[in-house]
């Protein structure tokens, strides 16, 4: 089969919680038009939503790139921001540096990165202090018609 890739790109700004979730909901609609299994779509958009929230909460801006191929859906979130000092610590459930304002909104449980990992078939995060953070997520595509194969 010829590999056909659909590429999508979104730019998001830090700071504005009202706009967080826009890219995830657009991508959800887009994926629903392809015959990707709803469970796979849910994993992809949940991971992306957590990433969007982290950009809004901690970074300045970011670019999201989605590549929908025949086998996989790849999501890259690359931000300009302060970066993460200790990635292992940040990945721990419960670790958070969220401000009190962010906590009041119900963010800051320290679960976002572990939610992202849990909803990814492959998860990679790298970060440079004072430059930014890049997250790469791959999920295998299960098509609805192939469900019982």
């Amino acid at each position, binding site marked *: 089969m010829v590999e056909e890739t659909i590429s999508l790109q979104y730019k998001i700004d830090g700071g504005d*919680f009202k706009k967080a*979730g826009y890219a995830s909901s657009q991508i959800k609609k887009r994926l629903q038009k392809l015959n990707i299994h709803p469970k796979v779509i849910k994993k992809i958009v949940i991971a992306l939503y*957590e990433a969007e929230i982290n950009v809004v909460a901690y970074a300045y801006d970011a670019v999201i790139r989605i590549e929908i191929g025949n086998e996989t859906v790849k999501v890259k979130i690359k931000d300009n921001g302060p970066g993460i000092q200790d990635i292992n610590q940040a990945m721990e459930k419960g670790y958070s540096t969220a401000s009190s304002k962010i906590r009041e909104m119900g963010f800051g449980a*320290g679960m976002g990165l*572990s*939610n992202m990992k849990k909803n990814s078939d492959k998860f990679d995060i790298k970060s440079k202090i004072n430059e930014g953070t890049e997250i790469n997520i791959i999920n295998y595509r299960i098509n609805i018609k192939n469900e019982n194969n």
Partner: protein
Amino acid sequence: MKIIDLVNKLGLEILSGENGLNRTVSGGYTSDLLSDVIANAQENNIWITLQTHKNVMAIASLKDLAAIILINGNKPEEDTREQSNIENIPILGTKGNAFETSAKIYELLNNE
């Protein structure tokens, strides 16, 4: 059970998303921590919370939740209400607290 049945049985106030009142509820989740809800709420759950901002709707939509109940007399912000109407995911209100509200819903859903 449908959302509308819960509304009638518990005397909940319909705050927005009326077109979604025929959604079916199966179970619920009570939490004010958004990433906890993202991790642990299940499709068609009713979500009991005091959070009123728009991200609540984003999560309800991404997780395909049945409805949201705002406890302690909380009201949704205007843009939360608008999003609820667009998504047809109802936001309901009660003066009761999270404990009482969860207990009553648990009881109703288990005696179905």
